[in-house]
């Protein structure tokens, strides 16, 4: 492996760029991750931001991170076709080193509203996910990866997540983003340690690691329990730095370690200084531990042979109906109790969704997440 880079998740956000500017000026940002689908309804970027992306792209140090594709939507949406078209166009312009997306489906009717939630791990979702990843790989013509999800309804889901991710990326010979804050959420919410979780992941497939901060939410279901949520609105907690130090030497094909934080939480000079301090701490760990990584040849994570792609994208009307029903319940219920009651009477009962086994405090969290993001980025309770 040539080199593991310390990178920033960097988007067109005044507060984030203001916080990052001293890092750019000092030449400390070795790579950039750009959420290329976040600037919806925008036709043109400022030339200086395009120049920044192109500077990193020209050194093969720009990676693209999608948010809104909704990998497991049971219905193939026009917006997904448009997303692929846009990705193809941007890939020609910027020559991304790789492209990634999130696990899950987006709640919400509008393509840019809602939040990503999990799906049943079964043959239908596996086939749909594989089909969609092939289409992403065809559009971008570079390595493709998936990020582990922070949220889970049950411990059993946490235990199966890594294996399912591995099966999803297999046809495109893809890779994983190991989001350590997402793992930290699972460790906190399901009382696991890092080794418990890492053993469940194909660690040789990790090409990128994310670190970020988050927040604790109260649970009305379990009064003494705090739920860890991946909100990206706070500095990186020290356990996540410890996890990074442990994880890097285990990942022979790691290429990027990325710091993420929302610009909305970087409005003061103190928060911006804390952000830079997090970057420096991350970079120290990267520099210290990368020599401990196993020495292996560069692995490109490109398809090893051509793969068939059906002319018509795979769909599952039943899955789509269930997703719509779940989204509607989570977004319209006025309380966790009402959401639970509606679910028991829904078409998701006694199916692969396994709602009967969902931990009550995690269903409550799903309800809170859906409530928070149902109006998209225009309005949500944290703003």
């Amino acid at each position: 492996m040539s080199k593991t880079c310390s990178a920033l998740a960097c988007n067109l956000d005044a507060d984030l760029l203001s916080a990052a500017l001293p890092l750019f000026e000092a030449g400390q940002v070795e790579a950039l991750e750009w959420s290329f689908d976040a600037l919806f309804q925008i036709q043109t970027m400022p030339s200086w931001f395009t120049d920044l992306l192109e500077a990193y792209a020209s050194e093969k140090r720009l990676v693209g991170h999608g948010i809104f594709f909704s990998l497991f939507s049971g219905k193939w949406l026009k917006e997904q076709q448009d997303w692929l078209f846009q990705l193809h166009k941007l890939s020609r312009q910027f020559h991304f080193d790789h492209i990634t997306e999130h696990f899950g489906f987006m709640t919400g009717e509008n393509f840019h509203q809602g939040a990503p939630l999990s799906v049943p791990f079964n043959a239908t979702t596996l086939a749909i996910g594989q089909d969609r990843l092939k289409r992403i790989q065809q559009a971008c013509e570079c390595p493709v990866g998936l990020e582990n999800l922070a949220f889970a309804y049950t411990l059993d889901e946490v235990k199966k997540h890594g294996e399912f991710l591995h099966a999803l990326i297999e046809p495109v010979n893809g890779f994983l983003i190991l989001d350590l804050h997402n793992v930290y959420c699972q460790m906190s919410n399901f009382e696991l340690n890092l080794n418990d979780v890492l053993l469940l992941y194909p660690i040789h497939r990790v090409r990128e690691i994310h670190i970020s901060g988050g927040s604790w939410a109260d649970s009305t279901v379990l009064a003494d329990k705090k739920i860890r949520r991946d909100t990206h609105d706070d500095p990186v907690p020290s356990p996540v730095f410890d996890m990074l130090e442990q994880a890097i030497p285990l990942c022979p094909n790691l290429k990027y370690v990325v710091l993420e934080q929302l610009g909305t939480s970087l409005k003061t000079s103190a928060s911006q200084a804390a952000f830079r301090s997090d970057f420096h701490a991350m970079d120290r760990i990267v520099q210290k531990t990368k020599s401990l990584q196993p020495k292996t040849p560069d692995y490109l994570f490109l398809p090893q042979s051509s793969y068939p792609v059906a002319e018509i994208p795979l769909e599952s009307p039943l899955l789509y109906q269930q997703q719509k029903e779940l989204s509607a319940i989570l977004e319209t219920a006025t309380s966790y109790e009402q959401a639970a009651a509606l679910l028991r009477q829904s078409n998701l009962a006694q199916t692969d969704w396994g709602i009967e086994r969902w931990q009550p405090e995690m269903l409550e969290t799903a309800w809170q997440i859906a409530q928070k993001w149902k109006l998209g980025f225009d309005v949500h309770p944290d703003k």
Partner: protein
Amino acid sequence: MKLSKPLLQALALGVALGGGACSLLQDEIEIQSDTCTEQEIVPNGVDKTGHLYNCPACGMG
């Protein structure tokens, strides 16, 4: 990675003008404050439609 001085200067100017919120609304990119009307320069990265430019990345938990 070292960035060129002109790029860093343009980046600093762009940030100072509000992260490009103004420029994003134009077809021709020209980072000059007098090219933006008061209605176009919007604080906190919110455009005329009310959408946020800042990316949520994956912090949607």
